[in-house]
Every structure is written in C-alpha cells, then in structure tokens.
C-alpha cells in the first residue's frame, strides 16, 4: 500500500517533468581550494539571456541543466571569493570547482551561508543556517563556543535554562528536537548537566536548523531538526588546530589519506570542569572528579568519480565521582557509514548505516549497601536517500529508512546481597520505518512550491509483558508477547507543504503546513537538568505524539543585500502529549506507564528578525511573541495551563564589529519573560513540617531574564611563512551581573521554622574567559 503510493507518485513526477531534448547536464562538486573540504549550500549560477542557478547538497554535489551555448558561470559561497568563468556547453560534463577562502579577519561576518536573496525565492521556511565563523565570534559561557547556544539567539529558539545547551523550539519540549550528527541522532546533546553541548565546533562544517517547514526527509520529532555535518578533513595537507580554554582544551588534526582522494579528521576535547564547579573538595574519602570529553572521527575516500565512502564517529562521556559513595557517567556513541553514488549525472544517491547509543550508569553506596542504575537507548538504522535533479525547475527527493530501537529504561540493581530478589525492568524493542517523497517545483518565476509526504510506521515488538490500565492507573490485564511478536503498530501519514511567492525581486510571501509524528517519548517529571532520562517508544498505552504546524511569513531584503528582514507567524496543534500523575515514580519503574497522563497542547507566536549582513558592523535583532499551553486530563482541573517553557516576549540582539585587521569585538543581549512556574498560594502543617499550598499550575512567573555577554578576538601577527596562526578570544558572560533566577524555592526559615522564606539561586555572574587558539598548516 505504502509502496504503491510512492511508485505512482514517482512515475507521475518523472513524466510530468521530463528533460528538454537539447539540454545538457552540468554536474560536479564545489570544494575549498585550500583544504579540499566540500562546500554545502554553495551557489552555482549560469548566465546567458536568462539566469539559472542551483545549490550544492550536503555532500557538495550539484547538478544543473542548460541548453547548448556559451554561458558565464559564477560560483559563490559565503566567506569565499566568487569564482567567475566562461563555459561552453555542448555536452554533459562534470566539474570540480575549488573556491579560495577569504582571510578571516577581512571577511565580512556573514550570518548565513545563503546566497544573496536566496532567502526570498526558496519555498522553504523556518530554516536557519549557522556559519561556523560567526559561532566562533559570539561570546558564550566560559568561552566554550557552542552551536546549540548560538541557535538560541535566533527567534523561535529558546534556552531551556541559564547557560543550558537545551532549547525549546516554537514551544516544543527539548526532547522534541531531532539532533543529527552526520545523520546519527544524538539522544542527549549536553554535557555537565546541560551547561555544554556535545558538539565540538572544531569538528563541525555545517549546521542547518529547521523550526518550521521541515522537509519530508526528516521525521521522528515534533519541533525541530538540527542537522549537523562534520568536516571531512583536509584533502591536501596536514592541518593541526587547537585551543586552550578556561575549562577545556581541544585539538583537531586532519590530513589526506591519499592526496585529493581521501582524508581524515580527528578532534578531541577534554574539560577540567572540576576546577570551575568548585564542587569537588577533598573529603578524605577517596577520588573526586568531574569532567567530560568528546572525540570526533571521520574519514572519507573517493573510490571512483561516481563513488565516495564516508565513515564518521562520535564518542563522548561525562564522569562524576564523589569518593567511594557515588559515581555516575553518561554519554553518546554514534557511527555512520555512508556511500555516495551518482547515477548518470543528475541522480544522487546516499546509502547510510547508522549506529547511535546513549547510556548512563549510576552507582550509590551507603554503608555496606550499594546499588546501581543502568539505562540505554540504542539504534541501528539503514537509510537510503535519492536526490534527483529532473530539471532546473523540478527536483525530487525520495527515500526511506528503517530503525531498530532497543531501550533499557533504567533498571535498579543491588550489588550487595541483601537476601532480596531484584525486580527487572523490561527492555523495550521497536522498529520505526519511513518512506518519503518531496518535490520542489518552480511553478512560475514568482511561485515556488515544495510538497511532500512522509509515511511513517512504528511497530512495537516483544518479548515482554504489556499492561492495560484503568483510568486510575491500575493494571487491568497483562499480555505477554514472545520475541519479535508485534504488540501494536502505528502508521501515520505526514504531509509537508510550503510555497513562496515573490512579490518583488526583493520580497516574498511564504506559507507552509507540516505534520510531524514522534514515536519516541522522553519520560521525566524532573525539572532539573539531570541526564537520567527514560525513553520509551509508543506502546499500547502511549500513542504517537503529533504536531500540525501552520505558518506564514514575509521576507524582505534591502537592495544592496546589506539588510535582511523576516517575519513568521505560526500555529501548532499538539496531540497525545505526555504528563505525569501526582508523585509519579519514573526511575526503575517497570510499570511507569501507570504514572502517565495524556492531553493536548497548542503553541502560537510571531517571530521577527532584522539582520545586517555586510559591513564592519554585522549582527541581528530578533523578537518573538509567543504562547504555549497544555491541557491534560487530571492536571489543573483539565483546563489549559502554561507550559514551563512559555515565555511571552523574547528579544536577542547580536552585534559584531571588526575594529581593525587584528581586533574584532562582539556583544549579545538577551531578554525574556520569566518561565511559567507554580508558586505557593499559602501553607499548612502536615507530617510535622510546613507544606506549601499550590493552586493553578504554572500561573506565576520567574522575574524577567536578561543578560549581556561581551567578547573580543585578537588575531596574532602573521608569521612570515603563514603556516602558523594564533588568536586569543576573551569573553565576559553576564557582564552587568544580573542575578537571574535559576531556581526559586520556598522553605522554612532555618532558625524559625514557623516562618517561611523564598530563596533564589542564581548561577553565573561576571564570568570571564580566555581562550588561546592555534592553527598550523603544513
């Protein structure tokens, strides 16, 4: 049924947009001339009487059709010199184009790597591309440049908390973001209780973030996709980069395997966070430590003109040890093996085998007793994507994938014999599969549309016991399934549509509709940033979460391309959202589904952004006005209540200024309405202590959050050979020392328990940082 539909669709697409007879295909790869690194999203334009253009895909590949004739060809990419040449087209041909990188300090800081005015014409909306040069300039906590924190400075993305790398997109939960590192999902993208992201920016080439019109090739999460691509490594020479920072040091080595054929890159980062936290004082009871590290590896090899192999991997771990009594460690592992193949010269194929794993361990010892918690989520994924350039007006993407999920939701085991019998928590198995097709079509010169469909399926498999519950959460019946037996399947169709209509050459109007389905659910009622997450697939009780998002937008560029303005309005309806019963027990509970409540949600808002893209001063001003609410049976009398991440106003201002050839400075200022929280409305005494009384859920607010961060970069004088470069980055986080509330708690006064007090905890004020960076090219 699914397959039939796809085939009919493909046949129709192919016949409707067959190529013109006399036209030829120019295809090829665009690279950095110095390092051989492929460039993602580089722009190729052919001029004759009319101009046609295209962009390179995620592997630097492009394909463009042209009739016989002589053309002027221009190839451009942000931060690189534009390459202009004359090309005579009388046959189909393949090109390999290298672009020269501009010197960084002279480079105008370009916020996106998009071509001038491309944001106007493209039908896709709600997408942001991050430029790695810019990420390096924006000041962040302790100087650890961080892609996930830079994202939070854009409208529509909100920080999940002070200094946090977690973020909420258009009202969604942090678990509703699909974070991909070379196509492998990263389940817990943060280190050190959320303060740092798992991505070492030195190893990253490109970041695209989708908050709205998510293309059909992505699925599995409701709110956003963060698609991160690692660098391939220097194809020409040995390249060593690194840095010594306030809390971490990093090194990055890349070199050719065979010059111009293959290369590798190894990146590593290790913190000395123990020092910064001041947590670890020697108590004379054994080892104390707190640190994390990351290793990124990637190798690629060009087997033939049409075939290229990539192998990439990530390994990261956090470890916290407090004497003999407590230790915990957690981290992600991912591996991706990919094969690119070009059929003919316009059908690009990518085949991937992907492995992804997140796990954590906890060990607690009291007296002679010791217990351990272990949890993991592990995916094996096979994925096939096709990218077919039917004509310059019509592009088709199609493909599918199948993922095998294995989840160990966190069993508690006792290391010492107490004479008792441990109760295991069952592992959960499921197979998630999807097929998609997406067609990008220039209907007229003014109208461009992308329409697509994703068909997704989740099959929950045995072995295991599955429970049926009554309304109060008591088990009514238990069904036992054997290994591989299907417990329940959920099939969903996810239509995706977006369109742009050019009002003028410099302005456009866009609209989109998307449906997204999420079959993996994060089960946690904790409000802290602990990594002790429990993931569960949809089951007979937990239904797939869905989101329907409608958005419209208006875009305008200034004529010289110096300014870019965008504004989007969205409405999102969410179903099968999960919440928790009163005093729910999540960790180590085989019967955790009995603790869940379900309901709906709605999120809507207006986002505006004004960007200055060129000149010595660059940056942007972003503003979001938004609302997000949930309605859960059994909470707040079944009425709508503010989600925790609901913040009405959100402003971010980012400015970067190139003072001279050596110095550049930057500043960011953020302001948001305080998070929605539940504060006491009274108190009483029960069980011999003060208990605070609460009424409506999340009806109160934290005080408004605001903060100014400052940064400066000093490039050291160039040495003569130009093989060695270094720079210093200085920063101050929270430069005017605003005491923002991280938590506000209510408690009895210590010396007079009859009285109560509110206590605010604020984390970071006036936090300075210095980082020294170096770069060596052979």
């Amino acid at each position, binding site marked *: 049924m699914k397959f039939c539909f796809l085939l009919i669709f493909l046949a129709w697409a192919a016949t409707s947009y067959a190529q013109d007879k006399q036209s030829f295909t120019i295809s090829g790869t665009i690279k950095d001339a110095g390092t051989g690194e492929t460039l993602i999203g580089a722009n190729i334009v052919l001029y004759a009487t009319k101009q046609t253009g295209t962009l390179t895909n995620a592997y630097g590949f492009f394909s463009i059709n042209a009739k016989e004739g002589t053309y002027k060809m221009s190839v451009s990419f942000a931060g690189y010199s534009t390459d202009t040449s004359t090309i005579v087209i009388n046959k189909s041909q393949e090109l390999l184009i290298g672009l020269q990188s501009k010197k960084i300090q002279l480079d105008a800081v370009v916020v996106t790597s998009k071509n001038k005015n491309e944001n106007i014409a493209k039908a896709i909306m709600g997408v942001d591309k991050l430029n790695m040069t810019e990420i390096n300039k924006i000041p962040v906590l302790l100087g650890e440049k961080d892609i996930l924190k830079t994202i939070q400075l854009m409208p529509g993305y909100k920080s999940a908390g002070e200094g946090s790398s977690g973020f909420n997109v258009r009202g969604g939960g942090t678990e509703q973001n699909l974070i991909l590192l070379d196509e492998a999902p990263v389940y817990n993208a943060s280190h050190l*209780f959320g303060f740092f992201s798992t991505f070492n920016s030195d190893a990253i080439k490109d970041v695209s973030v989708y908050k709205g019109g998510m293309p059909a090739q992505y699925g599995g999460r409701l709110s956003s996709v963060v698609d991160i691509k690692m660098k391939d490594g220097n194809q020409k020479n040995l390249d060593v980069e690194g840095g010594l920072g306030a809390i971490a040091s990093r090194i990055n080595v890349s070199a050719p395997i065979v010059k111009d054929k293959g290369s590798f890159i190894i990146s590593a980062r290790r913190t000395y966070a123990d020092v910064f936290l001041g947590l670890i004082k020697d108590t004379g009871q054994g080892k104390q430590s707190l640190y994390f590290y990351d290793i990124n590896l990637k190798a690629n090899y060009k087997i033939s003109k049409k075939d290229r192999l990539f192998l990439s991997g990530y390994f990261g771990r956090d470890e916290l040890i407090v004497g003999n009594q407590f230790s915990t460690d957690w981290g992600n592992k991912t591996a991706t093996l990919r094969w690119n193949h070009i059929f003919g010269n316009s059908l690009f194929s990518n085949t991937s085998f992907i492995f992804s794993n997140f796990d954590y361990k*906890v060990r607690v010892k*009291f007296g002679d007793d010791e217990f351990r918690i272990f949890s993991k989520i592990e995916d094996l994924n096979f994925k096939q994507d096709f990218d077919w350039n039917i004509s310059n007006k019509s592009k088709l993407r199609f493909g599918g994938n199948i993922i095998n999920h294995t989840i160990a939701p966190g069993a508690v085991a006792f290391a010492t014999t107490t*004479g*008792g019998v441990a*109760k295991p928590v069952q592992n959960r198995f499921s197979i998630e599969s999807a097929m998609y097709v997406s067609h990008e079509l220039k209907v007229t010169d003014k109208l461009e549309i992308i329409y697509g469909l994703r068909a997704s399926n989740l099959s929950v498999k045995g072995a295991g016991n599955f429970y049926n519950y009554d309304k109060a959460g008591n088990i009514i019946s238990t069904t036992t399934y054997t290994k591989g037996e299907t417990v329940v399947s959920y099939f969903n169709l996810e239509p995706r549509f977006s369109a742009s209509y050019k009002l003028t050459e410099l302005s456009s109007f866009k609209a989109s509709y998307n449906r997204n389905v999420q079959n993996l659910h994060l089960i946690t009622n904790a409000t802290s940033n602990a990594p002790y997450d429990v993931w569960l697939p949809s089951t007979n009780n937990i239904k797939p979460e869905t989101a329907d998002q409608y958005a419209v937008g208006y875009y305008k560029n200034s004529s010289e391309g110096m300014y870019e303005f965008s504004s989007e309005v969205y409405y999102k309806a969410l179903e099968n959202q999960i919440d928790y019963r009163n005093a729910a*027990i999540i960790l180590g509970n085989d019967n955790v589904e009995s603790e869940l409540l379900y309901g709906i949600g709605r999120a809507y808002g207006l986002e505006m952004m004004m960007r200055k893209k060129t000149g010595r001063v660059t940056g942007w001003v972003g503003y979001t006005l938004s609302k997000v609410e949930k309605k859960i049976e059994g909470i707040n009398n079944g009425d709508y209540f503010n989600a925790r991440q609901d913040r009405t106003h959100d402003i971010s201002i980012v400015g970067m200024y190139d003072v001279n050839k050596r110095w550049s400075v930057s500043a960011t200022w953020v302001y948001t309405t305080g998070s929605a929280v539940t504060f006491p409305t009274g108190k009483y005494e*029960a069980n011999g202590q003060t208990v605070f*009384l609460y009424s409506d859920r999340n009806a109160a607010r934290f005080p408004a959050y605001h903060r100014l961060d400052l940064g400066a970069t000093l490039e050291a004088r160039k040495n003569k050979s130009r093989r060695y470069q270094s720079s210093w980055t200085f920063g101050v986080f929270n430069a005017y020392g605003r005491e923002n509330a991280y938590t506000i708690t209510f408690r009895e006064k210590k010396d007079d328990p009859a009285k109560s007090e509110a206590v605010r905890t604020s984390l970071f004020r006036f936090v300075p940082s210095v980082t020294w960076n170096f770069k060596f090219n052979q």
Partner: protein
Amino acid sequence: MKSAPVIVGILLIIAFSSCEKVINVDLKNEIPRLVIEGMVDDAGNPAKVIISKTAIFSASGNYPKVTGAVVKITDNLGNIFSLAETSAGIYTNATLAGVVGRTYHLSVILDGKSYTASSTMPRKATLDSLLVDNNAIGNIGQKWIGVVYKDPVGFGDNVQVVQTINGKADRLTHVAYDLYDDGGSSSFFITTGKIKLKAGDVVKAELRFIDENVFRYLLGVQNLADGFTIPENPNSNISGNVLGFFSVHSSETKTIVIP
C-alpha cells in the same frame, strides 16, 4: 536499600547552590482551606486527628486550629471509637490500638459537612537496627542515619521514617518505595537536613509501614521539599477536597547515640 534515586537529584542541586539569596516574591493568597491529619498505629500511641486551616505564606506558622468537629474512627469489625477534642483542634482516643490488616474509617463532621477516609494497616514493621554512615554525597560532610529492617516478601511494603534528634523533630519527610528489591534485609538511609550531627547526639527513628495512598501523599510532600518536580498538592486520601491524610500504620522505634 530504598529510594536512593532521590539522592541523585539532591546531589545535582547542591553542586550549584552556592549563590542563594532570600528574596521577596509577590504571592497570591488562596482563601483558607481545611487540613485534616489523622493517625492510628500499633505502638500504643493514642489515635490522633489534627484539624487546622491553611495560612498565607507570610504568616508566622500559627495555623488556625478548627474546633467543634465530631470525629469518629470505625474499623472493619464494626468497632466505633469517638475522638474527643483534648486541646483546640486536636482530637484523640487512647483506647484505639491499631491491628495489622484491619481497615479503619475516619469520619469528621464539621459545620454540617462530612469528610471521610479509610486506611488499612500494612504488615508489621520490624526494625532491626540503626547505623551511622559518613557519606560524601553532596559534599556536605554530614552523617546519614541508616534504618535497617526486614522487607517482607512481596512488593509494595513502602516505608516512612520519623526522626528526632535530641528529642527535636527534624521537620522532614522520609519515605521510600519498595519497588526494586523484594524480601531480605533493607536499609533506608536518611539525612538529618540542616542539623549537623555531632558525637553524643541521640537520634530516635520510628519506622512505619504505610499504605499506598498515604505513601503517595507523603512522597508528594517529600518531592515538594526537594523541588525537582513541578509543585502540586499531594493527593489526599480524605474526601471533600481537603488537604492532609489519614494514616494507619505499623510502627517500631529505636534510638542510637552518635559515636
């Protein structure tokens, strides 16, 4: 060992709680609500029901006591015990001794309205010993009290510990769930909160086996104090939209002198 996952949460907050400040927060005040707390045990303590009202946050803790209620407890054998108001808002009956396995029904009639609850006394709590553990968790250099007891076969033997230090209540709720490990010897390690134990201190710990509804109420109270979940009023096992709980529990007490 019981309930130690909670400790994981405590650890995290301690790591970052260095910059605390007492602040004024503009809070809404709810109109006073009725609070009923009832207790029956098998340790010879009189059956006791305390009826009071909630106060506003800024009040200094003199919760208004509610007098003039008619309070009765009946058991599933049909025995009826009346509780007399021995001081303002406190209703007691010294002849009611709880029996393991029996279900008790509380009835409070106040201003023409009736409030009811029931609770069944769980299995007998047998407390083996108390011990002291110097533990670096949280790096607060404090001593933890270990309550060692026998866990009967079968899950759901949820426990509560009521602790006093030199005769003074610690003003904390300590509950643990019997979910991970069945039977054998269990130990439940509890903190003494803000009180730092020193040599010579006398710690008295009462182990209670409590029923599921009472356990969930007290777990709610414990969660509120820890502050790791969205705060909400614990679900009372008493009808009529009141706060508080009615607990019939088995109980054993031991003391230890800190070495």
